[in-house]
């Protein structure tokens, strides 16, 4: 009990002579939630992979509960009671919760036939002990994402893990579900486990974690108690230089016709009677909890779905319904929520992805003008400052931040006057986030409009001139983005 759960010093790892991690140091105590922070490429994943036995370190030392270890396989890490819960969950949807938790370790009659009553009882007892309100007999496929995550935690506990690594556990779940997850985390740490928590969402880190370690460029920067620093100091540690926040707040001219106008847009079961105006030069934020209809509204405005009622217009011209190609032509562009699932064609090149939406402008008689395409792609790569070896490289080879810039480049390639952004900075690091914010602000300053949906209140506050609050599919309120506070947003949205 005297030893920390994990104690790592000077852990290093290189790939073909390129160091990915130079000096990984970290100490995780019993009963604590420790945040591991750092931008993309800071060496976090490499460090976690070493801890999980997926990679072997080149140098340094790792102690688990006072015992020096050098895991050759994930199996050894699990034997030392280490578990990882990643962003990509892998439940078996057709099996029950209990079967998922005890997969391969089910209680059996005579070592052959699964003893289902015992299995369910065992699982229910475990879930009760952790205070998770889930029935072990439910099919996994019927659970929400947050509940699925709770089951993963229960699974880690059923293996008696006392070191649980959580890698971006909230990237796919909403605020109220995040609350459930946090209750679960508090419950398991109270029973003596230590949690290593990785997230780009700083507000979460301040809510749930008690201590932190920051990595930057493969090296250890600092660690300490979160009570001793504030958000701005933490951002500074992660990014490495002082970041200016929200000094873009220019007030757009109040006069003149609006650029985007939405009247009574409705879609059964998603959102109801939404009316909005966005002026040239304005950034309109849309804030709402999961299930408030914010993304559905954006998709419908863009034409991915058809509205049941209502109208929308851009520059005074009515927008076509249910036709993304026509929306693009009219001057709309959509930056989607999840760059892997909906944003990019990962199997294709950067160039292919960048020009995809602009092809109607790059063709003569359906034949792509390769010269025009190349110059468009070069311009966009420079403008968005995408770091790459060549536009012909696969987009999957880029870092998360650079992938998101390719999504933005594809949107800009069609020369939109209004950008619709759905969670434009999900899962990218602080530095890249700042670049995206600066880009959106300058885009609006040129007389264009931006509508940005985000579940991160600070992001909405940083970006928006006005904020529309969605609640249960309805427009609850529109407030001034310059004077609003985080508490106000949360209050209006829930």
């Amino acid at each position, binding site marked *: 009990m005297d030893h920390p759960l994990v104690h790592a010093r000077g852990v290093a790892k290189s790939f*073909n*002579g390129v160091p*990915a991690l130079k000096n990984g140091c970290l100490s995780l105590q019993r009963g604590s939630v420790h945040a591991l922070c750092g931008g993309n490429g800071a060496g976090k994943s490499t460090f976690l992979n070493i801890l999980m036995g997926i990679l072997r370190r080149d140098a340094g030392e790792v102690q688990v509960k006072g015992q020096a270890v050098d895991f050759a396989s994930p199996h050894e890490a699990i034997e030392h009671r280490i578990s990882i819960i990643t962003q990509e969950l892998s439940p078996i949807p057709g099996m029950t919760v209990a079967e998922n938790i005890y997969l391969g370790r089910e209680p059996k009659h005579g070592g052959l036939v699964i003893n289902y009553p015992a299995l369910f009882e065992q699982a229910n007892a475990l879930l009760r002990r952790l205070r998770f309100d889930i029935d072990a007999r439910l099919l996994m496929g019927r659970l929400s994402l947050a509940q699925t995550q709770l089951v993963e935690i229960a699974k880690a506990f059923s293996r008696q893990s006392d070191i649980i690594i959580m890698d971006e556990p909230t990237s796919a779940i909403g605020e109220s579900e995040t609350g459930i997850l946090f209750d679960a985390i508090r419950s398991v740490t109270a029973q003596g486990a230590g949690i290593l928590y990785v997230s780009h969402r700083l507000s979460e880190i301040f809510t749930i974690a008690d201590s932190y370690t920051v990595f930057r460029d493969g090296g250890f920067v600092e660690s300490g108690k979160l009570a001793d620093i504030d958000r701005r100091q933490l951002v500074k540690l992660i990014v490495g230089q002082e970041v200016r926040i929200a000094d873009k707040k220019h007030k757009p001219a109040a006069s003149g016709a609006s650029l985007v106008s939405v009247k009574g847009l409705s879609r059964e079961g998603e959102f109801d009677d939404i009316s909005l105006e966005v002026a040239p030069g304005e950034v309109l934020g849309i804030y709402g909890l999961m299930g408030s209809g914010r993304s559905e509204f954006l998709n419908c405005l863009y034409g991915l779905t058809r509205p049941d009622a209502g109208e929308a217009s851009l520059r005074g011209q009515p927008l076509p319904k249910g036709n*993304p*190609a026509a929306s693009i032509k009219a001057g709309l562009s959509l930056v989607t929520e999840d760059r892997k699932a909906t944003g990019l064609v990962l199997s294709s090149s950067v160039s292919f992805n960048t020009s995809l939406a602009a*092809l109607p402008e790059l063709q003569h008689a359906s034949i*792509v003008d390769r010269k025009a395409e190349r110059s468009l792609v070069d311009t966009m790569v420079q403008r968005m400052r995408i770091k790459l070896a060549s536009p012909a490289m696969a987009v999957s080879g880029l*870092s998360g931040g650079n992938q998101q810039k390719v999504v933005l480049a594809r949107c800009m390639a*069609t020369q939109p006057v209004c950008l619709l952004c759905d969670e434009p900075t999900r899962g990218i690091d602080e530095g890249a986030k700042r670049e995206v914010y600066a880009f959106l602000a300058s885009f609006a300053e040129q007389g264009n409009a931006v509508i940005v949906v985000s579940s991160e209140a600070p992001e909405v506050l940083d970006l928006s001139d006005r904020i529309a609050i969605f609640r249960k599919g309805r427009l609850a309120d529109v407030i001034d983005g310059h004077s609003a506070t985080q508490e106000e947003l949360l209050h209006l949205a829930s």
Partner: protein
Amino acid sequence: MNPHPTMTAASTGAAAPAARLRWRHLLADYGIVLAFIVLCIALSVADENFLSWGNWVNILRQTSINGILAIGMTYVILTKGIDLSVGSLLAVSGIVAASLVTGETAHTPMLGIAAGLAVGAALGAVNGGLIAGLSVAPFVVTLGMLSVARGLTFIYNDGMPIAALSPGFRSIGQGMAAGIPVPVIILAATFFVFWFVLKYTTFGRAVYAVGGNEKSAKTSGINTARVTFFVYVISGALSALAGLILAARTTSALPQAGVAYELDAIAAVVIGGTSLSGGVGTLTGTLVGALIIGVINNGLDLLGVSSYYQQVIKGAIIVAAVLLDVSRKKQA
């Protein structure tokens, strides 16, 4: 050892790893061509007739039908689909065309060709409509069509073959131009047209985008349903083209023609490096894949290997090609 994700970009700056990477990419991109050349060298050592002009004309002629089917199949598989009905569409189109160019009331060959292509395209449109419009799984739709179209072929002429095709029509299967068989010329022309479409047109881009990430394609303004629909129309029309050539070459349209041809077509596409999960692949690869199958069939014939063994060897090669593809992806 697993290369780290950030390594690729970083190490291109250094000379030695860059050269190694280039070699690895060359091998990955042209490995299948290399395999083809090695195969040809081995067969030419084993049998001196293999390299003769006459034998090659023979190989190319035999490859033309599978090659044309595989071109359509490549489009379909690039969109993450599959077309199991090509063999049946080949038969029904062939028999409809043959009925128009046989006996004393034979019409001009052009009418037969047009009718055959129309039948293939129309049944392909049924596939495409069900898949794109009603979101039924391609495997199920085309499996159904495999049976329906075969049945229609038997119904059409009561299960009897149609022979005595007009000489004009037969020339598309048996004719020669400048010492090259007409089917080979048709394959070459078809290949060039569809290669160009895939590589240089907006439709070609859309095919890759739909297979690579349908949601992303939709967001980019691509009418994904239309692309999916036309891919099956193309596959149907090319099946018909292959059916015309087969009927013309064998001088009669058989209702049981083309049974299991979908397997060789899919094999050519897969051997050629096109991913069954969509979005990745080239027509050049498919052509080489079809040639490999043609050369194996021919070479094993020359060596007197029984056709029973030929099936075993072909199957093993398909699996090996996919294994190669999987290990290539792990490296990249």
